């Protein structure tokens, strides 16, 4: 099950429980013991910053905005 972010309010661990958790044993096992293949199937070739959007212009009022959208950007 995957859940939506807003499904519920998480229940946080209480301080006594956090203290108790420190004493619990943690069993470690390898992927081999579990019989699964975890060798990567994807290799990262490179990582680069995305192309930056140039900041545009500020318009003084709505009239100018609509005119520019119509005449310059041709989107309305």
């Amino acid at each position: 099950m995957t859940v939506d972010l807003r499904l519920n309010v998480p229940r946080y661990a209480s301080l006594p429980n956090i203290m108790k958790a420190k004493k619990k044993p943690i069993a470690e096992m390898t992927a081999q013991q579990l019989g699964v293949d975890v060798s990567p199937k994807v290799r990262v070739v490179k990582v680069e910053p995305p192309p930056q959007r140039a900041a545009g212009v500020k318009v003084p009022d709505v009239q100018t905005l609509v005119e520019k959208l119509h005449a310059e950007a041709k989107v309305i």
Partner: protein
Amino acid sequence: MATILVVAEQANGKLKKATFHALGAAQQLAQKGGAQIQAVVIGQGVSGAAQELSQYGVTVHAVDGPEFARALAETHSAAVAAAAKAAGASDVVIAATAYGKDIAPRAAAKLGAGLASDVLGFAGEGGKAWFKRAMWAGNAIATVEVTTPVRVVTVRATEFPAAQKGGSGSVQPLKVDAPQPKTRFVEFNEVKSARPELTEARVVVSGGRGTKGDFKPIEQLADVLNAAVGASRAVVDAGWQPNDLQVGQTGKVVAPQLYVAAGISGAIQHLAGMKGSKTIVAINKDPEAPIFQVADYGLVGDLFKALPEMAEAVKKLQ
């Protein structure tokens, strides 16, 4: 010759737009290594959709049957894997929609394939195609190589042009034994809206915290522009608008011709969902809001005054 298999997405026998963008992506990928393209349509009563897709010059495998009527990941991913084997596909391309994200990992596991998700573009040559994908809320673009013989990729529909009709194709029925699913379809509640779908709209008008929950000016302008309505996370978290309007990293990724952000400050997570838009307009009271750094046109002002004014001005133009 290598074969690329495109997985179509359909609802009620009608192909979703994202399918044609996935096909467009497959055409770009095919140019890298000289591959041929085939497609698979899965569902019940999909012969019409399969016919339509074949007009794009591809061989279409039609997996048709009552057991595939509902888009359950278990049955549909089995059909994808079967079609990939039947086609001898080296690459499986699926649009990164909710449907594609659901079935791609399962299909990849069944094929023993590596998976590259949310791909924005291709690099490299020949059989060694590399995939460019966004990481960290779009703050970095990683180029990855999938090292398995079969590769499954989900592509971001907004980054690839839709394929055009042309060429001759054919439809082949494909018999697939559906696995007994462990989930059962109960019901489907569709939110009916007169507005275009958010991810497919030519214009999107979005509101943020600055609306204080009053979306009337947003909707007014959206109606004039025949636009879809979007929202920032703050709005959805506050319960002012439903989840499915959220634009951003955890919401929908949109890339319309025109994106109007009103009362949205422009958190990086929101920008990740709309940076690909062709023209961005920002209307915000705060002149320092980061949204202005990505906006083509910025207007510092009160959205409750600016949006109705804009709606009026647009009406006059039409």
